[in-house]
Structures are given as structure tokens and as C-alpha cells.
């Protein structure tokens, strides 16, 4: 129940966050209890003409995460994430994955109530 996903440019806690959601390089999945990490590669999204956000939402939902930390989420991805009951912390940029997790743990990431980007961006 305590797994979160962070959009990332690489597989580790010290990699930089990727501000994009659907077309992020990948997702670092962090277990908040043990701080153990896993990585979901999202390279496939780069070749999709459309629907990258929906596919990314499916990928992280299958990994059993309850919360996503990222930069921007479009309307379709927002709808898909909400349907899966995944909380969205957005507008995070220029941080490492570790810094984002720390912000989340100390309660300074607000959960989004709507998308912050147009479709297809």
C-alpha cells in the first residue's frame, strides 16, 4: 500500500526526474517502508503517435502504486490515473527522484485535482 512512482530519466534515486508523464523515460517505483526501488522502462512510449499517457497510466497501475510524482499530466492520463485510484503530485521539476520522495514524505506535495497540460503534449 505504500508504493509510489516517480517519472525519471534513469533507474535510481539519484537520477533526475523527467517532468513528462506519458513520454517519461521511465518510472522509479519506491516502497516507502523499505526505500527499496524498482524501475519501469517507458521507452516504448517514444514511438507512439498518441495515447502515451494512457499507456503509462496502465503501466504504473499494474505495478500497484498508489501515488505518482511528476511534472505534467494531460487530460486523458489524468482520467486514467484517477480511474485507477492513483493520486497525482504534479508540477515537480528539476529535482532528483530522492528529493521528490523526500518532499512527498514531509507532506509538501499537494495532490492534484485536475490535469495541468493539454492533450498530446
Amino acid at each position: 500500500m505504500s508504493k509510489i512512482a516517480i517519472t525519471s530519466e534513469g533507474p535510481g534515486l539519484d537520477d533526475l526526474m523527467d517532468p513528462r508523464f506519458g513520454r517519461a523515460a521511465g518510472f522509479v517505483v519506491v516502497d516507502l517502508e523499505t526505500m527499496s526501488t524498482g524501475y519501469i522502462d517507458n521507452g516504448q512510449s517514444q514511438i507512439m503517435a498518441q495515447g502515451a499517457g494512457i499507456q503509462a497510466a496502465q503501466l504504473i497501475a499494474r505495478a500497484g502504486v498508489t501515488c505518482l510524482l511528476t511534472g505534467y499530466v494531460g487530460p486523458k492520463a489524468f482520467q486514467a490515473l484517477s480511474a485507477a485510484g492513483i493520486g497525482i503530485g504534479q508540477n515537480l521539476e528539476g529535482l532528483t527522484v530522492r528529493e521528490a520522495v523526500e518532499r512527498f514524505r514531509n507532506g509538501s506535495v499537494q495532490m492534484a485535482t485536475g490535469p495541468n497540460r493539454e492533450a498530446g503534449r
Partner: protein
Amino acid sequence: MIVSVASGKGGTGKTTVAASLATIWDRPLVAVDLDVEEPNLHLFLHPEIEGGETGHMEVPVVDELRCTFCCACSDLCQFKAIAVMGKLVLTFPEMCHGCGGCIAVCPEKALSPGKRELGEMSWGRAGAADFLMGRLRIGEAMSPPFMRMVKSKLAEMIAASARDAIVDAPPGVSCPAVTAVMDSDVIVLVTEPTPFGFYDFQLAWEAFVPLGKPMGAVINRAGLGNDDIYRFCGDKGLPVLVEIPFDRAIAEAYSRGRVIAEISQQLKETFVSLQGKIRELAERCDAGEAVHA
């Protein structure tokens, strides 16, 4: 014979040429506006509309009571128009390409065909010619499926009584433009001798050559710019069919919604000559001569 009037660059004179050809054409004809994203041929031909039909695309509708969340549909869909999120199936109808694959693959028969409106087709008479046009629904992103419906209607009209067709195609060189010209017998490329006109003309030539259709160029606003286009046509063996002069009187007539073949004897003769050259192109191709090898 189906003649498509196409271009790379927009605003080079496709509709001007299509409307003029439709007006002087001396055989039974249907004038077709396939620029469904922004149809304007009717503004020049003033058709009396006699009938119409709404075009739809098949999109999936989910029966949530039957769905077992097996993901067969979402795994198949290349466009992410259907997604299983936990115990919810989401559909994104605007992303659906209407292939029907999800409905076919569902083992529980939980999906059935619904409809997304694509646009309005209408037809009627414009002077001596028949008229057919499509108008894409505002907000609809995919024009080729709707264009195919307009083309089926055209095929139906031609089957009912044999006649030629002049097709006003959309600009550009992507799917809509290719969809418009791909089953025509002759492609007329309308261009202008400006740098933008020349650049897009080359793209259009490259895009349409693989279709193996007889092609020719109409140079509009002749007298502007330089002779790059003429040289390109010479190198590629692409005939310049006619030239339309860069003339204020033509622009004025156009802006008043007039068909330019009707404003002077000289312009009328230009389009009568174009009609003859289009027929020659088609016949030469029928005789088996290689096109643009």
C-alpha cells in the same frame, strides 16, 4: 475518369481550377469537394442541395456487467482508445480509428459498436453538373475515414450513371491529400512560382509519384517569382499543362466568388485547353506509356 486537383501548398488555386474545370467540362460530370476540413467549392458553384447523410465511425461501447477486465481489448488497441484501469474500462472515442478489433477480440462479448459522428455529406446539382461534398464535424481530428465515405458515395453516383469527376483535394501531402488522390485517373497539381509554392510542389510530386498516376502541373500566378518550377518540371518529365497569369482581375473575381473561367474568353480557353490536356494525359497512360519513370 476521375481528375484530382491537388497541391502541396495551400492557397495555390485548387478550388479556382476545380470550379473552372467543372464549369467548362463538356461531358457528364460530378464536382466533388474532398477538402472536408474546409470545403469551399460550393461557394463558387452554388449547388442546389438535394440530399445528405451523416457519416459515422464505429467505436466500442462497454457493457461493464459482462467485462472480466482481461485486457484483451486494451492489449490489442494500438491507439490506446480503450484502457482497463483496475476495475474500470475507459474508452477514449476520439482516439479510436474504428477498426473494430476490440469488439472482435472480446471473449465475453462485453463490447458492442457505438458511433462517433465524423461529418455531414451533401449532394445536389450545380448547373449542368452533379455536386458532392463532405464537411468534417468541428473537433473531429481524422478526415480520411470520412473522406472514404464521400468517395463511396461518388462511386455510387458514377455506377448509377457514368460520368467524370473533378475532385477538389485538400492541400498538403499527408494522409488526407493521399486519400483524396489515390483512386483518381489523373492528378493535376496546382502550384505557384514562389519559393513556398516550389518547395511544397516538390513534396507533392514526391508523395504522389509512387501512386503511378499520370500527373501534370498548372502554374497559377504565372509571372511571379522565378523559373525553378519550370526547370523542375522539365527535369522530371512532368508536363506543365496550362499557366494562369498573375492578374488583379482574377483575384478580384475570385474574392467575389466568381468562377474565373467565366470572366474572360481567354481564361475560358485556358480551361478548355486544360480539359483537353487532362484527357490526353489519361489516354497516353491508358496506352501503356510509362509515367514519370
